């Protein structure tokens, strides 16, 4: 990667792989359960979180030398909250249906631990470019899990993908049924659990002795 130094690139790729915010750091679980019934809201949520995470990381990183230590958490919160409101307003104007589906969860991006976690752990002590890449990486890492979970839940829960039926009607006629449990939040937790299991089983260094 010639355009980026190795640390910048690493800031982007780490959260996509072993340091995934959801499966390794166990952050942002709450919204991962809530918005993954269907693929479309999950993707919009992933894009929104990525945008807010990357932008707030830049802002905080630019300000990092000027933010008074004693009020840094409040400053981070103000920056995140305003970006979330802007995202919410944009969705209401340009993707009204999706914003209705996401309802309160857009506002709850503020409380997504990934954001505050990255600001405090990364943006406060790194350059804007590195922080931007870190925000993007974490957003994508979060989005990746969201999309996997939403794919499975929508496919087996309602037989659809993006709201279009993909399981043929003939399956239903011979007795196939949608799994109602898939629609409920506990199933999302079980799927996330399985993904974590899979990842930890593959990476021995992640297992506690």
């Amino acid at each position, binding site marked *: 990667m010639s355009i980026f130094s190795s640390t910048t690139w690493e800031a982007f790729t780490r959260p996509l792989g072993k340091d995934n915010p959801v499966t390794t750091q166990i952050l942002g679980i709450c919204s991962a359960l809530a918005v993954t*019934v269907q693929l479309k809201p999950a993707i919009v949520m992933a894009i929104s979180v990525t945008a807010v995470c990357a932008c707030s990381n830049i802002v905080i990183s630019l300000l990092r030398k*000027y*933010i*008074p*230590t*004693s*009020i840094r958490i*409040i*400053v981070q919160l*103000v*920056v995140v909250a*305003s970006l979330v*409101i*802007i995202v919410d*307003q*944009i969705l*209401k*104007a*340009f993707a*009204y*249906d999706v914003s209705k589906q996401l*309802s*309160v969860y857009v506002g709850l991006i503020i409380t997504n631990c990934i954001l505050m976690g990255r600001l405090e752990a990364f943006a406060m002590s790194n350059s804007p470019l590195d922080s931007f890449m870190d925000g993007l990486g974490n957003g994508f890492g979060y989005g990746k899990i969201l999309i996997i979970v939403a794919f499975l839940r929508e496919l087996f829960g309602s037989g659809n993908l993006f709201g279009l039926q993909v399981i043929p009607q003939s399956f239903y006629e011979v007795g196939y049924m949608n799994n*109602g449990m898939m*629609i*409920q939040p506990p199933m999302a937790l079980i799927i996330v659990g399985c993904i974590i299991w899979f990842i930890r089983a593959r990476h021995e260094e992640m297992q506690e002795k």
Partner: protein
Amino acid sequence: MKNFSNLYIFTFAAVLVLLVAAALSFTALSLQGRQQRNREIETKRSILTSLGVTSTVDDAETLFAKYVKGSLVVNPAGETVSEEAMTAQDVKEQVGRGADRKLPLYKAEIDGQPYTVIPVAGKGLWGAIWGYVALQGDCSTIKGVFFDHASETPGLGAEITTDKFRTPFAGKRIYEGGRLVSIKVAKKGTYTPDDHTVDAISGGTMTSKGLDAMLKDCLTPYDNYFKKQQN
């Protein structure tokens, strides 16, 4: 760690807040028009759905103009007050008022048949629920309904928006022997199926009860107006 003076901290906070406030106001103001339009289209689509007309975001306005002939506001005595178009959101403020309650309705016509659409609003389990009830020319038989909610439980109370719940309303009657009885939403086994009852949602008891109360609260005040139309 660098030490910051109190003055610096206060100035920093003040400047930050001002900048943020300016950015937010700018966004809100510049997007206001589009958001308002989205809400209007949504209302129109809701009314069309209650009339059994399927619409998309793009054709909603054309279809609305084609089928909906006008709006009226009447008072509990059944007299016309104005021709203002009030949505289900506006009805929220009217619930519980007495003789000065504004009772909005929409007049529609599809294939030569007249319909009256009544906006309704009430409380579910977690938050507001609202909708539109389309009545046939006799002001008693239901043509169709539309319901929506702010925050009911997905899979349970939120089922009020589904076709499965809405379809059985069609053909039910809100009048029984000249008396306005509204539509009851009751659990199977607790009622004998008749013209004035639809099946409630299993697991959504509180939402069903809220919806039952909403229909009663919002349809009963129209009694005088409906009777005038029926005669």
